[in-house]
């Protein structure tokens, strides 16, 4: 599908928004998670989302937006992010983040790759592929953690809850109208 630069910019800025939220969610969990090894896992991984944020932020600047500008995701998608951030038990946080939200975002990225023109949109594609590549490592780190600490693997249905919310999504980008200037 051919999309306009304007549409691509909105999508990229929305990816940036999502990554900032993920970085902030993990940051909030670092001091408030009791289990040492889980705390450290969150602390390490928030840097990955900061890097993805940075890449998408720079790319937004290349697509006629200001650099490092975010576009808030659609309201139903923001609700998923809010629910994720609200988990307060460590096993729910782990399950919700690694098995739930990363899986949802992975699907969004894969769908974006399938839709993108591989030549016209190559700079964005490279960023998305890099993010997907990082996800494999993040999820492997998580698997290693729960293998060592099985008590952290229960999850209390957190991932299922998030995935159920995502099933009813019709889109995650709140595209600008033709008349709308960009607002952060």
């Amino acid at each position, binding site marked *: 599908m051919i999309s306009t630069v304007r549409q691509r910019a909105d999508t990229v800025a929305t990816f940036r928004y999502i990554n900032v939220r993920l970085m902030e969610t993990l*940051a909030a969990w*670092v*001091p*408030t998670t*009791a289990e*040492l090894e889980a*705390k450290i896992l969150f602390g*390490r991984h928030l840097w990955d989302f*900061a890097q993805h944020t940075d890449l998408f932020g720079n790319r937004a600047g290349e697509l006629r937006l200001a650099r490092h500008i975010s576009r808030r995701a659609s309201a139903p998608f923001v609700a998923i992010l809010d629910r994720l951030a609200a988990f307060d038990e460590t096993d729910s946080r782990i399950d919700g983040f690694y098995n739930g939200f990363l899986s949802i975002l992975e699907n969004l990225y894969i769908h974006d790759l399938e839709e993108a023109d591989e030549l016209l949109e190559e700079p964005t594609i490279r960023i998305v592929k890099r993010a997907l590549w990082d996800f494999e490592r993040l999820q492997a780190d998580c698997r290693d953690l729960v293998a060592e600490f099985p008590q952290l693997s229960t999850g209390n249905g957190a991932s299922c809850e998030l995935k159920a919310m995502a099933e009813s999504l019709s889109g995650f980008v709140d595209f600008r109208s033709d008349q709308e200037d960009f607002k952060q």
Partner: protein
Amino acid sequence: MGSPDKEPLDPTLFGEGQARDDRFQVVDRWADLVNEEPLSPEGRREFLHRQMNEEVNVMEQAAQSLVDFPDVEWEIRKWLARQCCDEARHAQVYLRRMKQQGVEVGEYPVINFQFRVLHKIDSLIGRLAVENRTFEADGLDAAVHGVEEAKADGDSELAALMDAQAADELLHVGFANGYVRKKVKEDPKNILAMARALDRSARAFKIAFGGGRAQRYGVAESERLRAGFSEEEVRVAVELADERRRSGRFVDEDASDSSGETSTDGPSAGQNARQTYVDGERQL
């Protein structure tokens, strides 16, 4: 949690503690830690545990600043995220070393001074002045010294650990120095926020660390210069470190300006408070 049979810490200076699992015994004061002779076998074991917990404190503090200051420039937020990740790696390296040496998590009590003091500072420039320009700068000195000490002991693995840690600390001090200079240039009143933060931390330090030992090592001058401290700041740091080593005290309990001391165990807020004033005057 908290030190046995002691008054609770002043809640205006110390924030709530972070979450810790049941393995940990968290105390409030340095005197309630297991303070073995640093170079003894038991002291070396305890050092690994203490250092691991310090790395976790800095990680938690960097993460908390990401939460507390969502509107600051992206570049500085990115650095905070990087620092958080670096400290997490450091903690993992110490955990690995602890495991190799049979040291259990929770084997020794820990103190969460850094996070609790930093959490009460309401400006990012203040937190960076205390955490990165003071604690991390002292950590840089300690790591540089630690490399040489480990080499002398024939412990190449620990030397490599310390060397890598020093390289990371240099980045953390450096980005804070860059941010502080930029902000002071933009608005010289930012010096006041730094001074308030440094004063608070010095007072808190005096409460939590009273009775501690003096540092065993000096200022890593070339590394501090590389991290963006001015020659004048390094000169002042060297003078103060020399003065403290001569006095043999960790905290100058008679000093009215609450100047703190540096040790392998903790920070020196007062030292860098003075450095900051020097820096501020030059910027002005």
